[in-house]
């Protein structure tokens, strides 16, 4: 006699499983659980859109309400992935429209989204609520107009750092007067002016609006009006933070900010006029997130703001903050979890600001909860890195970019191997690491030995030989994403660790020494991988087998061949009803 829970009970139990990993684990227990789970999984995350395909997804999960897809590899953010590579969401949208009429949420990252996609989204899903496009491109304001006009129940429209073809600013006016469900609107990436009166009316009729991130064109003088209409805002992004110095403008701005008792996140601040900064003082102590990375104002002005942000958890700022400002952060922001410092003038060789490694050391000392760092600077030393690692063993994400490639320890002129080695050794929970500076194979030895929880590693201009890559691939048990550029890594380590690649989401190598022959071999031997050679040169077929490829992108997949590749992308070593791209 077999006992089994009634399905309803199982379903109820599964409803408490929210993490996809947990659900994946549950579905492996037995066939009953697998079946049960797949019918009730509502949220899907696909980290690499080419790892599966829409058919596979739909076949397994028939009742999906929310989908998240990621397309291009991370290095696409830095223009390393050529135009037209892929990441087209259209085939997915078409299938979703066909099969998931009750789909509510779509989150896309680094994908190509066309206006046609947006139109389908706006019409196919009656209860569509959340559209988050992060670093996407391929659509225009016409597509946005379709979404505005047709999505009656839209709650979230978030265009994060997208590249939008802006034909006009009128799209915002397409939200009908009957539309009142908006909770979150982020248009910071747009450059064209939207009708302010339409915006104001929209804000006025959206009582649930919690997040409003404006674009640069919204003038400072008008912000008070918006804030007055939406005092419930929790997350606000200003437009250009500049205006003629006028006391009436200033006081109404300050008053408006004072009225926002729930405001926790503040961003925007393009073109900041420092005289207006104190207008935000009333909310500083409430803030948990502050993004001043467009505020090109000097350290003293920044310090005046930050010194009041006692509850700050995440700070994004330009290197204008300088070491002195970071000392203030260390003293004031005792709850800080994440620090991001962007370079103000990345292409200038010498420092234009007094920001050094000391600022980071200072924050690492003062902010005991600091977990995540992204720091651009011009000099670093092993001793600083060692200090940081000892101060903050609880770091989970450490990304350091020394602007000059291969810069050594500026004090000793040694490589920074020992410093980064200390980071991975002391920060045992480290899941993400980006390195820079002068690094030899030794740092990879440290990483392979210690970085057991490392999930993502980014490497540039580092290492001496294949041994470096081998250390990482053979040692980092949790590694899922590895991206490498301009390192002398070749075929040996790659081929010797081929099976490791099946445990990872993806590996990117550009401007390294991986040869055509190796790519072909890997593709042939590993049917579970797509070995994409991305190479824009002509006459590739004439190059010898040992010639290095420009870029190779390797990822595990169950979906088989891509059908949407441009000419400069070849999947190596696979036969497709005959000879297929066998170079």
């Amino acid at each position, binding site marked *: 006699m077999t006992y089994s829970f009634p399905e309803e009970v199982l379903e109820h139990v599964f409803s408490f499983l929210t993490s996809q990993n947990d659900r994946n684990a549950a579905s492996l227990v037995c066939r009953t659980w697998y079946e049960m789970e797949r019918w009730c999984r509502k949220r899907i995350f696909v980290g690499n859109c080419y790892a599966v395909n829409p058919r596979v997804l739909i076949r397994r999960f028939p009742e999906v309400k929310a989908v998240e897809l990621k397309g291009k590899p991370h290095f696409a953010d*830095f223009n390393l992935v050529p*135009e037209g590579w892929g990441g087209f969401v259209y085939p997915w949208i078409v299938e979703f429209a066909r099969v998931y009429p009750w789909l509510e949420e779509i989150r896309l990252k680094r994908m190509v989204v066309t206006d046609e996609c947006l139109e389908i989204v706006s019409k196919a899903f009656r209860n569509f609520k959340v559209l988050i496009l992060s670093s996407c491109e391929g659509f225009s304001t016409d597509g946005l107009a379709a979404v505005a006009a047709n999505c009656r129940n839209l709650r979230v429209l978030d265009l994060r750092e997208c590249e939008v073809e802006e034909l006009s600013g009128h799209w915002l006016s397409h939200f009908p007067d009957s539309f009142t469900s908006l909770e979150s609107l982020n248009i910071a990436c747009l450059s064209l002016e939207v009708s302010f009166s339409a915006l104001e009316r929209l804000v006025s009729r959206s009582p649930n609006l919690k997040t409003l991130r404006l674009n640069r064109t919204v003038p400072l003088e008008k912000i008070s009006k918006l804030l007055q209409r939406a005092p419930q805002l929790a997350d606000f992004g200003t437009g250009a933070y500049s205006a003629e110095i006028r006391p009436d403008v200033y006081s109404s701005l300050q008053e408006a900010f004072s009225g926002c008792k729930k405001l926790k996140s503040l961003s925007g601040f393009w073109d900041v006029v420092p005289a207006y900064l104190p207008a935000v003082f009333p909310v500083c102590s409430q803030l948990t997130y502050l993004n001043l990375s467009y505020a090109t104002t000097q350290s003293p002005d920044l310090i005046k703001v930050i010194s009041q942000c006692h509850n700050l958890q995440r700070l994004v700022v330009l290197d204008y903050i300088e070491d002195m400002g970071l000392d203030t952060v260390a003293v004031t922001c005792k709850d800080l979890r994440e620090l991001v410092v962007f370079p103000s*003038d990345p292409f200038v060789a*010498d420092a234009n600001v007094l920001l050094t490694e000391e600022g980071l050391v200072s924050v690492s000392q003062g902010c005991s909860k600091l977990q995540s760092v992204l720091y651009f600077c011009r000099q670093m030393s092993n001793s600083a890195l060692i200090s940081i690692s000892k101060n903050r063993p609880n770091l989970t994400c450490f990304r350091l970019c020394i602007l000059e*490639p291969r810069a050594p320890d500026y*004090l000793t*002129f040694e490589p920074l191997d020992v410093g980064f080695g200390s980071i991975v050794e002391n920060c045992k929970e480290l899941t993400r690491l980006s390195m820079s500076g002068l690094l030899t194979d030794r740092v990879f030895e440290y990483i392979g030995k210690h970085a057991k929880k490392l999930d993502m590693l980014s490497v540039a201009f580092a290492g*001496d030989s294949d041994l470096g890559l081998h250390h990482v691939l053979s040692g980092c048990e949790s590694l899922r994403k590895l991206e490498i550029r301009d390192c002398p890594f070749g075929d040996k380590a790659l081929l010797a660790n081929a099976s490791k690649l099946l445990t990872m989401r993806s590996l990117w190598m550009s401007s390294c020494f991986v040869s055509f022959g190796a790519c072909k071999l890997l593709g042939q031997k590993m049917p579970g991988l797509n070995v994409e050679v991305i190479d824009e040169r002509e006459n590739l077929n004439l190059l010898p087998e040992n010639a290095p490829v420009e870029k190779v992108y390797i990822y595990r997949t169950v979906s088989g061949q891509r059908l949407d590749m441009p000419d400069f992308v070849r999947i190596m070593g696979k036969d497709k009803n005959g000879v297929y791209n066998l170079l």
Partner: protein
Amino acid sequence: MSSPLLGIEGGGPANASMESGFPKNPAFTERNYLGLSDCSSVDSSNVPSPCLNLKATELRLGLPGSQSPDRDPESSLTSSEKLDEKPLFPLLPSIDGICSSSTKTVVSGHKRIFTDAMDSCSEIKGLSEGSWLFAASGSDSDPSKSVIQGKFSTNSNVNGNVSSGDQVAKGVTTNLNKVNASNPPAAKAQVVGWPPVRSFRKNILATSSKNNDEVDKKPCSAALFVKVSMDGAPYLRKVDLRGYSSYQQLSSALEKMFTCFTIGQCGSQGGSGKGNLSESKLRDLLHGSGYVLTYEDKDGDWMLVGDVPWDMFIGSCKRLKIMKGSDAIGLAPGATEKSKNRS
């Protein structure tokens, strides 16, 4: 300014200035931290040199002491040979034979990397301005032993005096910030995708801080992507014009992007490149190879790049095209005669 720096490069071939023909020998690399040489002196991207003689631009790999190993990956690198104690490339990782024995070799090799560098460097006289040649001691040995051979040139952006050891760097860094009152910092040519900053962040200074005094500047887009096509190239690219602040930077970037379509020799290393590459020189570069850089402006007219001030150019440029010189005959005549320096 740039040639002597290159003369230091790994005593061998590949000073032949290919487009990014910049031999990078990790065992021996000049460090140009002051960015004083011309554009792609810090270009360390986009190797290997595509479509061209690979040997000429070979990177030096492997441990010093091994014979200049070929770039040819098949003649395996000394260290990576150690990986082959098992059959050629076992597809299952076999950790045992790989790590232990080779590690020591590699480690000791690392010490030699820098010693070799020091030996080689010490023979080179006439260091040009701003070149730091350093010889770090091996990673295990006493760090305070590091020897610095370098010269600071007075026209560089560094005012520190070389004293010794630890003093140097500190002196340099404290001076760094005070330096640029009079000297505008030298702009570096961009390595593609480096530093890893999103395009819309690259131009923050260009669009706002220089206008800090003005309050009513018109807001401009964070990024200005235009398509770049080239006759004969199968694909077009996109560039963010706001990521550059001069024609020189743009031309360097385009050269790198289209280099495999033989846009021409990079003139950045040669001759008198002093960081003030004029538009006429840009056109010379392109003309030398038979190509010209043109753009379509707001009115739909095709013009030669370089005629107008940079800011005006990016305000009116809608797309770029690299055309064969013969096709560009009808364009903006007389523009090439102007040679205002606009960098």
